[in-house]
């Protein structure tokens, strides 16, 4: 029987149950951050895994995004003679939006999937149970280092992505669109404001937290062997990407609404 009201009701109840589980998981994770012991070594390991090893993919994304942005803005603005605005729009677009969002989406795919797969495998092979029997809180040992590392390293990655992205735009501006190098750089730095960069970095920290949280949550709740781990990985990536886009709107509202 596919009574539409029953279907909507079941969907709503499932949504509430998931929301409740995620809220409890988030509460436990955040409270574990402030409770000793703190595993510094694991946190540094995660910073390397999440941050350093993500540099190539984030850098490449930023470089070509900056390049194509300059090209598109030039072609569009040429219709009403505003080609000189290219450096200004590239730097604002990258620092406010494209840098943090694209880096977040790339990290959501790379890091969120890796965390969910690792923790999901640990769950189905009883390694999480083993941690508990060895008097080690899995939230402090596994979740906190990943949350802290992702929240700290994502803004650093985005800052680097901003620089590389602007450089991508600069290279296209100089070598393809015929801009003067000095003028291009002067326009870039004159137009950029601290708030442009700061808002992007705050977004990045929020995105990093969400990516690690979704990876850990779905990993911890995986079940049913290899298929379950695969499902957890997919769910972690999809949910983190959606949450990044939703959070992006609200952080933008918080920073720039009049």
């Amino acid at each position, binding site marked *: 029987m596919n009574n539409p009201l029953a279907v909507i009701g079941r969907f709503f109840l499932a949504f509430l149950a998931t929301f409740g589980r995620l809220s409890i998981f988030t509460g436990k994770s955040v409270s574990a951050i402030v409770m000793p012991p703190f595993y510094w070594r694991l946190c540094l390991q995660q910073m390397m895994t999440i941050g350093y090893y993500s540099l190539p993919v984030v850098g490449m994304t930023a470089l070509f995004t900056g390049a194509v942005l300059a090209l598109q803005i030039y072609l569009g603005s040429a219709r009403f003679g505003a080609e000189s605005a290219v450096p200004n729009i590239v730097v604002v677009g990258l620092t406010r939006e494209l840098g943090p969002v694209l880096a977040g989406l790339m990290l959501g795919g790379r890091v969120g999937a890796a965390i969910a797969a690792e923790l999901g495998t640990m769950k189905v092979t009883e390694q999480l149970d083993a941690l508990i029997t060895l008097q080690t809180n899995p939230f402090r*040992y596994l979740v906190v280092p990943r949350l802290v590392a992702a929240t700290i390293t994502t803004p650093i990655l985005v800052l680097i992505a901003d620089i590389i992205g602007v450089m991508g735009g600069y290279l296209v501006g100089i070598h393809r669109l015929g801009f003067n190098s000095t003028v291009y750089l002067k326009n870039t730095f004159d137009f950029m404001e601290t708030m442009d960069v700061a808002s992007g970095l705050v977004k990045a920290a929020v995105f990093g937290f969400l990516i690690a949280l979704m990876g850990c949550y779905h990993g911890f709740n995986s079940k049913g062997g290899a298929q379950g781990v695969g499902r957890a990985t997919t769910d972690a990536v999809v949910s983190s990407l959606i949450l990044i886009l939703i959070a992006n709107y609200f952080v933008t509202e918080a920073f720039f609404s009049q």
Partner: protein
Amino acid sequence: MTDTPRLELIDVHKSFGTKVVLDGLNLSLAKGESVVVIGGSGTGKSVMLKCILGLLQPDQGQIRIDGEDTVDLRGAARERVLTKFGMLFQSAALFDSLTVWENVAFGLIEGAGMEREQARAIAIDKLSKVGMGEDMAEADPAGLSGGMRKRVGLARAIATEPDIIFFDEPTTGLDPIMGDVINNLITECVQDLGATTLTISHDMSSARTIADRVAMLYNGKIIWAGAVDQIDDCDNAFVDQFIHGREEGPFALEVT
């Protein structure tokens, strides 16, 4: 004879939705005693272990460790009780991100706060007790055979010299010779420590080697318990069918 049991389960109930898994389970282990719980697949043996370890919350009943009811313990109180436990998981549950010695020393370093060098020395000693040399200490657990993983798991279970050790299907997935090696290692290690042990197993050869006492779990209850040398003479039809691995018997009747 009024000694407090080391471990006591009193009227323990556990259900998942409408499926009743434990239905008034009673079991008691004296200090230094080795009990093996046998029973078919899905009879609740693993759920019983998880309830004792605090990984699952029983719906009703008491689980007493040295006389203290542990069912509602949380946080530091639960961790204090866990210091009394060692556990060998069915799949060994070794941490892939750590070396063999770090796995063995995990409870000492993270649980007891011991320095790494001191913990490493103890880990090497425990590995030698399960027949593994120092050359294996830096090995990656992912590269070990099933028997080796069980040995490392056993070394980890005894590393903190716990009062109570749990063995979840210790010989499952091993060939008969390696199974016998593991059984003998368990017996030797436990005798050295004087620990109380609770094992769940399908393997009657393992039960006969390890156990002082055998209990049979069926439909969420212990339906028979007795000394290991009484098991062949018991008049319980379920036990008789199980230990002889016969197709005909009360289990088969229920299946049809």
